[in-house]
């Protein structure tokens, strides 16, 4: 294991991290997700060595870090607000760390980063003359040129304009392949994590709720909190009987028999199929529903539908919206496969 966080606890102004455990392999790209105030940034600060640990230990390549000051840890950080040195040129910003860490072939390394990030033309400029996207690329170069063991990214995209965001996302993917550096990306945006990371951990209230492959978290959230966070809108507390789940008189076919009698089921909004007429299809669950509300979001729209006072949210493209023409109060048919129903907790 490259990075191992063991039973880490931090207390800070009444806010606390508790029993945080996490392991990252060398060269991994892990996303640390969670709602605002979950403690993601505090965990990063603990890794860098800026806040004292109350319990636990952090190991890097097996060596404990807790005695080491930030400058001895080999952990670089990139902040949301770039944090470039305003009194230094782009060149001096990027080269800042090189005088402290002896990096072999640092000239080559620097040249390669500059060319990959398209920064050659900006070397003599000062940070205040750069766009947000350019500044963040400089910050990335500065953090990576010293070949850190770990690169921490604290919501590096969220201050950027959408156009730059996409651009930087591509750069991040690109750079991750090159060195052996492990990336740990903090974000409160699940789609962003999904598009970048291989593994992920979801943090809620100072604890890690779930960690693992990002697809697994997306497909099999272990708790309602995680389910809600990864966009499983249709989350219901149900009673199981045989291979079906019951809630408010509604019987939902699961196609398999759960271990417990009670639990949660969740269905992704995009797994709900809507139609004006009942579909004759292989989908095991099909109901007549009443439209409650339609929220258009440009590319896609969310439709709230009611069945027996149970509200389902479906996502359809704006295109489909024009075909379905759903109006609050009218009826539509709603169907979904038994395999689209996820059992939680």
């Amino acid at each position: 294991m490259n990075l191992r966080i063991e039973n880490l606890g931090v207390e800070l102004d009444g806010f606390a991290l508790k029993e945080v455990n996490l392991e990252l392999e060398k060269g991994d790209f892990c996303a640390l997700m969670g709602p605002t105030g979950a403690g993601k940034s505090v965990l990063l600060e603990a890794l860098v060595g800026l806040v004292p640990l109350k319990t636990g230990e952090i190991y890097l390549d097996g060596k404990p870090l807790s005695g080491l000051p930030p400058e001895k840890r080999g952990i670089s950080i990139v902040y949301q607000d770039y944090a470039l040195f305003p009194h230094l040129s782009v060149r001096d910003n990027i080269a800042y760390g090189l005088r402290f860490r002896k990096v072999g072939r640092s000239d080559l390394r620097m040249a390669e980063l500059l060319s990959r990030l398209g920064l050659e033309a900006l070397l003599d400029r000062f940070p205040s003359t750069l766009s947000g996207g350019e500044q963040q690329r400089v910050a990335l170069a500065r953090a990576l040129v010293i070949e850190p063991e770990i690169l921490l990214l604290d919501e590096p995209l969220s201050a950027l304009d959408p156009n730059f965001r996409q651009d930087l996302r591509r750069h991040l993917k690109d750079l991750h392949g090159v060195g052996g550096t492990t990336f740990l990306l903090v974000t409160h945006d699940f789609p962003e994590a999904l598009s970048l990371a291989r593994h992920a951990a979801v943090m809620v209230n100072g604890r890690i709720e779930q960690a693992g492959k990002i697809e697994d978290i997306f497909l099999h959230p272990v708790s309602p909190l995680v389910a809600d966070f990864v966009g499983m809108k249709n989350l219901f507390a149900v009673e199981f009987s045989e291979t079906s789940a019951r809630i408010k008189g509604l019987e939902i076919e699961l196609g398999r028999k759960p271990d417990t009698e009670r639990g949660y089921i969740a269905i992704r909004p995009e797994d709900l199929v809507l139609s004006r007429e009942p579909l004759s299809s292989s989908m095991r669950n099909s109901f007549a529903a009443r439209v409650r509300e339609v929220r258009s979001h440009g590319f896609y729209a969310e439709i709230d539908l009611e069945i027996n006072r149970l509200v389902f949210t479906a996502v359809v493209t704006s295109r489909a919206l024009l075909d379905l023409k759903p109006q609050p109060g009218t009826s539509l048919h709603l169907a979904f496969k038994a395999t689209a129903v996820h059992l939680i907790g």
Partner: protein
Amino acid sequence: MRKESFLWLALASSFLVLLFILVPLLRMVSAPSLAALRATIIDPEVLRSLWLSLYTGISAALICFVFGTPLAWLLARSEFRGKRVVEAIVDLPIVIPHPVVGIALLGLVGKNFWFGRLLHEFGLRLVGNPLGIIMVMTFVGLPFYLQSAKEGFASVPPRLEHVARSLGASMFTTFFTVTFPLARRAILSGIIMCCARAISEFGAVVIIAYHPMIAPVLMFERFQSYGLKYSQPVAVWLIVVCLLLFVSLRLVGRGPERTRSGGAR
């Protein structure tokens, strides 16, 4: 209309205040004849006192800079119990009446206290000596330097320091390569304010050292011995010297900054 009347009232009051500050100074500067000014500046006693004022004031500001910078940094960067008490202590020299400052320092380093006698035995004379003047000036100038330097340090985002640390810089190197350069302007302002306050001091200095005479003391003596007319030219020259000093300090401090961010919009 109501909107305008409010603005006019504010403008009128502001003008009054500015006039109150400017008119006496302009009147004073314009009062002495050129001949009197010329005669004053070649008077060796005046030259000596101006020079004494300048070098004691600058020394006091440099002492504040060297010893005060760490305290300003701590006040800007760390939270600790009793921080408000420390801040109140630091502001004390502004609040203490000036002769009280002199009396308090004299009580410490004068010959009727063991500490003063100890200093005297080691050959360190402070009373009636430029060293004593520098001590008094340091005392009254400190809060001005600390205030400005503290604000300068506080305006440097801690994140920049965190990044520097994570890139391998020690606390020491981080301070000298990131924090200090970014707080430079505020520190320079603090030095100038401190120096100005030091040179302007009279009440405290006159108690520790009537002689050698700094310019304000000389001015006071001429006022008492010969009257207003003979003190005005000295006052004008003192102001001119101070202004020259501060303007040149500002220019020196600003020069490099401009070159450096030459590419900035």
